[in-house]
């Protein structure tokens, strides 16, 4: 007692060093050339026990033959990485905010301080130091290209490639962990899921997994290039074939290790049968999947005097993942452009150097994001049950078969204007788009009395994105040795789910999601997926200040204020995580041999649900868990203060000084062709009104904009570098 521990600092290193080395060599002769490069990165993570090491090697060779009519290319890239991380990182981050600062990290006898009588309460430093997690990746891409020039303006291309990626992971929980943290809850990222109870064996538990994904790709096409006077035609017909295998491999989890220091590296020493009732786990069913994709495609580019441009294409794509009658889809697209600056009526003006108006419409198909065998009736493991004195495997359909599954289609309409003016001092573009995804493949909720798995992957809902993007490039100053170029990007997107039902089953038109599962708030959701609403729509209690006795009250479904709101029934739509405006602003300054690049980024008009803050807003639990300083001002009688409500929905707007790099270029020193020395800083500062640690919470996926201890802390990085060319 009486300690003063900053738990968030305790799980971090004060500084972390990273290095990055690059070496490349290239050369060649009249009929061949080559290049080789090697890149090495080592990054120390800011959290204890986290780091990344990566090596990338590249080799490519080009060879010409048959009087240079045939070009052969061969390249290999291999990348390997080795990352140390923290198991249950989100739980560790959660505990670091929750743990009482008056508790020490260690007791006076050198053992970790714990108070396990307090449920879901674990020393985060002990969690880190009594567990390990390592993931190694190895990715190989080998490709062969051949291009043969034929008569009549024809060219034939053949590309073959092979992709192979391997992962090897290990995790280990030592005897301290398995003794003290059995039955703890995980803290998953916000989404459709719930937190789950984590079970460990005894005397340490180790997991090892190794999986391989491979793709083989063949692409072949014939190009015809012809110019007739002012007309130019570029036509392509082709075919591609791709076979993918994912999840080839296995995993195993075992327990009861004789010592703690062998980690996950010697599972043979484990004695799982020494623990009555322990079962070795081989991970989930249905990891291995094989798919095939075949396409025929044709494309035509035509332009007249570089003034009128037309592009038209059509693809016929086939995928093995769909039902036998729905495997093939046809996807056309067409685009036109008109360079107005070439027209007579704009001749003689000296405002526009270039002015181009363009429009396009195209449809694309999606065949990924779900199990490869969804369209088929397949049984898998549903658990075990008691049969004749033994636990017997229970096998049955693990998902609803949907033989009607077909391509999800996205049609995009685009209108844009590209311009260059004032003698190329200013250039840019403005672009409007409207994107509709229909027949959205999604796992729709279904009455389990009809489909016992409770959901079916089907084509159903639709979603719309429309917006505008503006890019401006300006050469602001060019005087003597000094120059300043600036690029500004502004983007606005509006997203809305237009339908969320599937044609096979009625009902289920909305889905509640994002459940942080804070104490006393089991199952309480923060967001909803619903037709007419965007992704990231917040749907929760509406805070309405405090009543006369100082207790937080909320607006009920009937419009009356209540201190005992009902989950679901009394929820209100409370804004969304979708930003109204994104900004990117890049500036390059040059003076003599000095150059300075400054990049600033901003996001405006989005909301963040600060659930981290809500769960630390419990004045009446101060004797058991940490609370925020702000919450100390709350009346201890306000037992509703922490309820997930609009009180914890904040404006997520921010401006981040993302990067500044200052460099100096030395010209020709002895054998050195070029020497550049530079220093850069990332994430110098953020301007925001957001009360959480960082406003840049997860903005993608199905549940954007929820802050729940699920982020890796953003670091400020200082970098010094040297580039040398010989």
């Amino acid at each position, binding site marked *: 007692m009486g300690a003063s521990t900053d738990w968030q600092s305790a799980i971090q290193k004060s500084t972390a060093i990273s290095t990055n080395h690059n070496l490349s060599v290239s050369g060649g002769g009249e009929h061949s050339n080559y290049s080789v490069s090697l890149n090495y990165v080592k990054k120390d993570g800011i959290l204890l026990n986290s780091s990344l090491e990566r090596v990338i090697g590249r080799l490519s060779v080009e060879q010409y033959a048959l009087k240079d009519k045939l070009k052969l290319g061969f390249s290999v890239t291999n990348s390997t990485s080795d990352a140390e991380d923290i198991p249950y990182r989100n739980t560790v981050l959660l505990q670091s905010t929750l743990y009482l600062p008056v508790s020490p990290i260690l007791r006076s006898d050198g053992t970790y301080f714990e108070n396990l009588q307090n449920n879901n309460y674990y020393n985060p430093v002990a969690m880190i130091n009594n567990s390990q997690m390592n993931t190694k990746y190895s990715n190989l891409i080998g490709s062969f290209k051949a291009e043969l020039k034929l008569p009549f303006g024809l060219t034939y291309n053949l590309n073959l490639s092979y992709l192979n990626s391997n992962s090897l992971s290990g995790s280990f929980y030592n005897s301290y962990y398995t003794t003290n943290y059995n039955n703890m809850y995980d803290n998953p990222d916000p989404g459709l899921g719930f937190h789950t109870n984590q079970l*460990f064996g005894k005397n340490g538990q180790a997991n090892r997994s190794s999986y391989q994904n491979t793709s083989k790709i063949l692409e072949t096409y014939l190009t015809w290039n012809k110019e007739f006077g002012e007309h130019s035609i570029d036509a392509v017909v082709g075919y591609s074939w791709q076979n993918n295998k994912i999840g080839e491999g296995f995993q195993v989890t075992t327990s009861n290790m004789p010592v703690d220091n062998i980690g996950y590296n010697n599972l043979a020493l484990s004695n799982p049968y020494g623990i009555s009732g322990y079962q070795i786990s081989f991970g989930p069913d249905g990891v291995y999947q094989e798919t095939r994709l075949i396409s025929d495609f044709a494309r035509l580019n035509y332009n007249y005097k570089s003034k009128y441009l037309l592009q038209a294409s059509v693809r016929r794509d086939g995928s093995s993942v769909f039902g036998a009658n729905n495997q093939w889809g046809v996807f056309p697209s067409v685009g036109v452009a008109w360079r107005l600056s070439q027209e007579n009526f704009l001749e003689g003006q000296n405002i526009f150097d270039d002015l181009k108006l363009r429009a396009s419409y195209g449809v694309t198909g999606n065949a990924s994001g779900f199990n490869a065998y969804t369209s088929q009736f397949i049984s898998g493991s549903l658990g075990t049950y008691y049969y004749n004195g033994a636990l017997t495997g229970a096998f049955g359909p693990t998902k609803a078969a949907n033989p009607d599954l077909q391509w999800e289609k996205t049609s995009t309409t685009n209108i844009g204007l590209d311009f260059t003016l004032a003698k190329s001092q200013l250039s840019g573009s403005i672009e409007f788009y409207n994107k509709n995804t229909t027949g959205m493949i999604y796992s729709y909720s279904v009455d389990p009395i009809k489909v016992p798995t409770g959901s079916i992957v089907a084509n159903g809902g639709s979603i719309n994105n429309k917006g505008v993007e503006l890019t401006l490039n300006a050469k602001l100053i060019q005087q003597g040795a000094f120059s300043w170029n600036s690029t500004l990007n502004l983007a606005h997107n509006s997203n809305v789910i237009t339908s969320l039902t599937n044609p096979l089953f009625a009902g289920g038109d909305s889905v509640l999601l994002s459940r942080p599962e804070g104490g*006393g708030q089991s199952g309480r959701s923060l967001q909803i997926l619903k037709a007419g609403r965007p992704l990231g729509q917040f749907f929760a209690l509406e805070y309405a200040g405090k009543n006369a006795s100082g207790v937080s009250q909320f607006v009920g479904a009937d419009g009356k204020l209540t201190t005992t709101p009902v989950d679901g029934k009394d929820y209100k739509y409370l804004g969304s995580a979708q930003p109204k405006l994104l900004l990117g602003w890049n500036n390059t300054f040059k003076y003599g041999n000095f150059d300075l690049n400054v990049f600033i980024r901003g996001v405006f008009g989005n909301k963040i649900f600060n659930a981290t803050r809500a769960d630390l807003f419990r004045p009446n639990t101060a004797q058991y868990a940490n609370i925020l300083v702000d919450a100390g001002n709350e009346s201890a009688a306000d037992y509703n203060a922490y309820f997930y409500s609009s009180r914890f929905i904040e404006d997520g707007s921010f401006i981040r000084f993302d990067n500044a790099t200052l460099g100096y270029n030395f010209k020709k020193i002895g054998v050195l062709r070029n020497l550049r020395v530079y220093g850069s800083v990332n994430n110098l500062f953020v301007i925001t009104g957001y009360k959480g640690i960082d406003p840049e919470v997860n903005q993608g996926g199905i549940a954007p904009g929820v802050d729940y201890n699920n982020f890796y802390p953003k670091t400020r990085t200082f970098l010094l570098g040297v580039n040398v060319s010989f």
Partner: protein
Amino acid sequence: MYHSNPLLVEIMKKTFLHILAIILMSGAMFSCHDLYVPVTTELTPDVFPSNAAQYISASGPAYVALRGNYAVEYFQQQSFSTDETIMPARGGNWFDGGQNQTMHYHTWTQDNGYLNGNWYWMSTIIGVSNQTINILRTTMPSGAAKNTGIAEIKMVRAFAYYMMMDNYGNVPLDTLYGDFTPKTNTPRAQVFDFVEKEIQSCIPFLSEVNDVTQYGRPNKWTAYALLAKMYLNAEVYTGTKRYDDCIAACDKVIASGKYSIEPRASYLQMFYPNNGPQMKEFIFAIPYNPTMSNSFPFRSVNIHARYQVPRSMAKRFSMPYTPAGSASTLPEYYAYFNDSKDVRNGQWLTGLQYMADGVTPITVTTTNLGYDQFYKGSNPTEVKTFQVNLTPDIVLRQSVASFDAGNDEVAWNMGYRNIKFYPDATSLNRDQNNDVPVFRYSDILMMKAEAILRGGAPTGGATAVSLVNQVRSERTTSPALTTIDLEGIYAERVREFAFESWHRNDMIRFGKFENKWGFKTNADTYRRIFPIPRNALQLNPNLKQNPGY
């Protein structure tokens, strides 16, 4: 004469070769359009199920689903809505959206978590059963094994429909796999008729065996026990008395001679972690085992001790985790345990607590403020050590509106605790090995006694009091009863079947569900059935809400 120009021939030859090359390449380009990828790593209908062992595995999902919520959330729905259990919040923890509060106050709405979760669970059992029946029907060769296999799954479905009808009244009847049209509610009395006919149609095919080979799966006596339960409650469900039918169904089980009343010495052991097929009273039990696996979205475990054992007593029971200890009984319920000679008192933790030796006190060390969050003295952080003393009353000291007893030692030691499903010291985690009985032989005798008292004709020379004494003689050394009335039957059922998920059913049949207990005063009679939950109404727009909600 025509003279060929050699140069021209050469050019034509070259052109021809080029064109041929282009055609050949084009041919190669568009040759393969085969998207067939054989599935070699999953159980496809070509390979599964196709032999006796596989039919057993294919039947399994119905039992995995049945295990789902039975020991936890289903029990809680039956118990939290009565005087048997209360689970107040502790400093906001365990408030859980008010689902425990509204169950206690009888103010639940269609949004209540238990009501939603259990409807979903029962629907899943029915959906899985429909699917399993379809798989067995289309794959198994005709014969006795097929008839019995399908009858057993139909009994699982009948029991799920029974629970659904008992809890929600008017429920949709979905009995055919592949029929995707959304059904509307079937009135409760018609669901009763369906379940009754279904059980009767299964009886000829069900096994009469009662041993390890049949344990966990319904046999013929399970069917009669379920019929007896239906007929005893028929007046509640349909308005028609069926007490003679109840007695006849009980007599079938009694006449089988397969079961007997567990003696006093082993009554409590019936619910211990090592219970199983050897229990003389178990007609149908749901086996739980911490090492069973489950892929359904239900807990599928028995974790009774997690809720009932105080946090300070993990060591006392050698539990491998710290229990939550958030639930307890109410004084109104405990008052029925008023016979000091009754072995059934052994299922309670009350008053001062000691280690297993019975003399070493169980103590907790905390601070004055940790002991009592309302401590106003001068030394809030002074260390305080005290012996755990469980007090009978539940007081909502922190907030009545939030159903909150407070988050301190005073609150954590409130309420008498039930350890009938005795903590499992052999488990690696909180999941217990204790199987949960659905129908016990003592229930058969108690049902027959009650049916006689309610007007059924006695059979086999038994009277209501002789049947009750048959049970009591193996429970207490107090003298046998000389008379019994319905009130006496009710009291005996409270003692006999505590925490076995029948208390709500009993309270309704005895007209006690509208009584006052704890903080509950609501006497709405429409609450004898629960509302159709919100999620169900969303997934099936043809469902109509029950009257009153």
